[in-house]
């Protein structure tokens, strides 16, 4: 203020209007300088800073921006909507499918190896979309059965009211006699219908090429793949209960949700501080876990973890668990290739976040083992009258299972 020339000071002293103007101007300049860093340009001076400071939009290619995906299951986006709560194959086709053999159902390449010829199966294009039959040609029964087999994996639930719980089962037409399969599927259907649950059943053979590509053919690795497929077929369901085909539900009066899934009940049932690998392991289930947080429910048999029955929640943890477990690097790992249970035990022992979402429940809640009359019974695992589920693990394949199933199914509590 003092440096203002004397003449100007005199002028200002006399003239009142310009003085006010100069004061306001000076204030504006100071304001601009402090706020915008540019005395004269003020807010407009911001335009002089490069645009890249505010956004990197000039680097983006709008063609790929906001491209969102919702890819369907493994067999592609040509899905077949199903209104009902059951996505199941026709069990009566089992005999025909068995006669047709995999050679007809899939594409096939024969590779010569040291131990003889090796058949490599692959999915043909008609697995991924409907291929129209030439006009005038009538499809016969066999063709119908084949096309049903190929399109089963594309069926997704599209009803208005999604079930909360979905029962999942894989049917093997080579391992079990048709009579037995004709009892397992109705067993699930009756139970699911009673409580409005969904039912998702697939032929185990459908997964053959996927198993072959990582050396899992003949193993039970398809269970992991099947569960993930089920989640994609019922996207709005909450729980997926995989119950193996050799298990039967014997108590239709027990509602799974009230029996096990409600947090209050699960909190009582889950085994805390319990070894993952039997008989004893350093890694144990956590002592204080909120049952609300549980996304994976497993049981154990006398050897350790069992995959005959698993309940997986349809959330981030459930999906990540199945995708990580079924990853090709796990399936292809020499220690795990023939046995998915080894991989499961490995995951739970190395990854505390997944272990924290896992509950192990007493076997007899959902996985009571059938024991031969001569064999010694184990009170904590062997089936006793009144149990929810029986696991006919020891039945003789192809001959004995059906007879055993009949004896149990007579006693089903409706």
């Amino acid at each position, binding site marked *: 203020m003092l440096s203002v020339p004397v003449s100007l000071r005199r002028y200002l002293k006399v003239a009142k209007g310009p003085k006010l103007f100069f004061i306001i101007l000076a204030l504006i300049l100071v304001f601009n300088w402090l706020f915008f860093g540019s005395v004269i340009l003020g807010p407009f001076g911001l335009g002089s800073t490069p645009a890249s*400071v505010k*956004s*990197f939009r000039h680097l983006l290619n709008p063609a790929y921006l906001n491209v969102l995906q919702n890819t369907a299951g493994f067999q592609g986006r040509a899905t077949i909507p199903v209104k009902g709560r059951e996505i199941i194959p026709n069990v009566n086709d089992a005999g025909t499918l068995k006669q047709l053999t995999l050679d007809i159902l899939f594409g096939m390449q024969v590779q010569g190896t040291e131990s003889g010829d090796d058949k490599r199966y692959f999915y043909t294009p008609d697995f991924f979309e409907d291929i129209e039959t030439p006009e005038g040609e009538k499809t016969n029964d066999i063709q119908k059965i084949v096309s049903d087999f190929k399109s089963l994996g594309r069926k997704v639930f599209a009803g208005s009211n999604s079930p909360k719980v979905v029962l999942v089962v894989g049917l093997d037409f080579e391992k079990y006699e048709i009579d037995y399969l004709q009892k397992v599927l109705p067993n699930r259907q009756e139970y699911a219908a009673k409580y409005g649950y969904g039912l998702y059943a697939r032929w185990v053979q459908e997964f053959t090429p996927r198993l072959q590509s990582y050396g899992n053919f003949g193993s039970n690795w398809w269970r992991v793949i099947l569960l993930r497929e089920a989640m994609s077929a019922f996207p709005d369901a909450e729980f997926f209960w995989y119950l193996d085909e050799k298990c039967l539900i014997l108590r239709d009066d027990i509602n799974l949700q009230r029996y096990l899934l409600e947090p209050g009940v699960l909190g009582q049932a889950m085994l805390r501080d319990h070894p993952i690998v039997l008989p004893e392991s350093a890694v144990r289930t956590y002592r204080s876990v909120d049952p609300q947080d549980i996304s994976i429910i497993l049981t154990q048999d006398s050897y350790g973890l069992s995959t005959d029955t698993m309940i997986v929640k349809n959330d981030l943890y459930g999906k990540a668990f199945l995708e990580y477990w079924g990853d090709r*690097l796990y399936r292809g790992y020499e220690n795990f290739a023939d046995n998915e249970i080894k991989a499961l035990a490995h995951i739970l022992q190395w990854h505390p*976040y*997944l272990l924290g979402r896992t509950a192990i429940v007493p076997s007899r809640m959902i996985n009571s083992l059938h024991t031969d009359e001569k064999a010694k019974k184990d009170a904590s695992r062997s089936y006793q009258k009144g149990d929810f589920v029986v696991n006919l693990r020891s039945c003789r394949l192809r001959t004995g299972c059906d007879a055993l199933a009949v004896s149990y199914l007579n006693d089903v509590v409706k």
Partner: protein
Amino acid sequence: MSDTRDGSEKDVPETLESPYGFGYSNTFKPRKQGFKIGDLFKASFYRNKKGSNSRYNFRLISLIVVVVTLISVISVIPSFFRLKQSKVVIILAANEGGGVQRWKTPQEWSVERSSIANKREYAERHGYILTIKDVSLKRRYSHEWREGWEKADILKQTMRQFPDAEWFWWLDLYTFIMEPEVDLEQYLLNHVENKTYRTIEHFNPLGIDAQIPYTDTMNSPVDLVLAQDCGGFNLGSFFLRRSEWSELLLDLWWDPALYDQKHMEWEHKEQDCLEMMYSQMPWVRNRVGFVPLRAINSFPPGACSDQRDDPRYFYNEKERDFLVNMAGCNYGDRSCWDEYEYYRKLQKKHREKKWFWW
């Protein structure tokens, strides 16, 4: 004399309850009269008595007072907007190698100092939290060939350390922020879903499948923002949001069964593993958002030198890219120090230029 005064200072506190009465210190001298605002006005009134231009003086004083208050108040205002806890934490990985395999040269020390100063200035300017993490070679990581996975452990630990922060920005040491004015929230983090590519189709040097089953990006937020260079994913500069997903990712990132099979192939360790998880697992894919490399991680001409004509990788002075990452400046005939000094001077030049704009 002075001895006794020092001694008495300890015994007799200089308070109002002094035994020597109000206004007197222990030195028996009258206390100096402090400045009082009233004096200013008194002075002007005295002038008034003399009949000189007192009104002018009064106005002058009050104008000075007003301007000074205005300046002090205005300069404080911006900090009011930052009173809320910062949502962004910058993690700077320093002390790479830690001088274990060879001595750290003075130039390396110098680069490290400039890098830290650069980030510190940036963080202070925007009110972000800067945390510097030591990534020197450690025995527990060399044991299972898992040096790269220290990154996941540091991220986990930092998330615990700053429980209120939302975004965590990992920066390698040899990065330099060229435009300190960039406000990360405005630039990238607000509406991050609209600013990132949700598929790999835009740029795919690794040939990853563009579509895999079970992907659903429709209803997923973006929790990991990263860029790709000529060789695939680049983890020299990336953003991770705190969420269930990111905690799970950090947990599943390292797995002995995967690493047992791949440790010979995975040259870039955790980077290759993330690429594998992205290419195979839809749950990972759902929450990854890509940005162009130059948005968060421009290269100097030395990096990606096989494709030196591709403008997508390299720092563009005209467009004023945000950050330069001198990745791999330790290798070949490149010099970290020379490159670092070049960009440091360039940034200084850019900032000086601005002052001439008024």
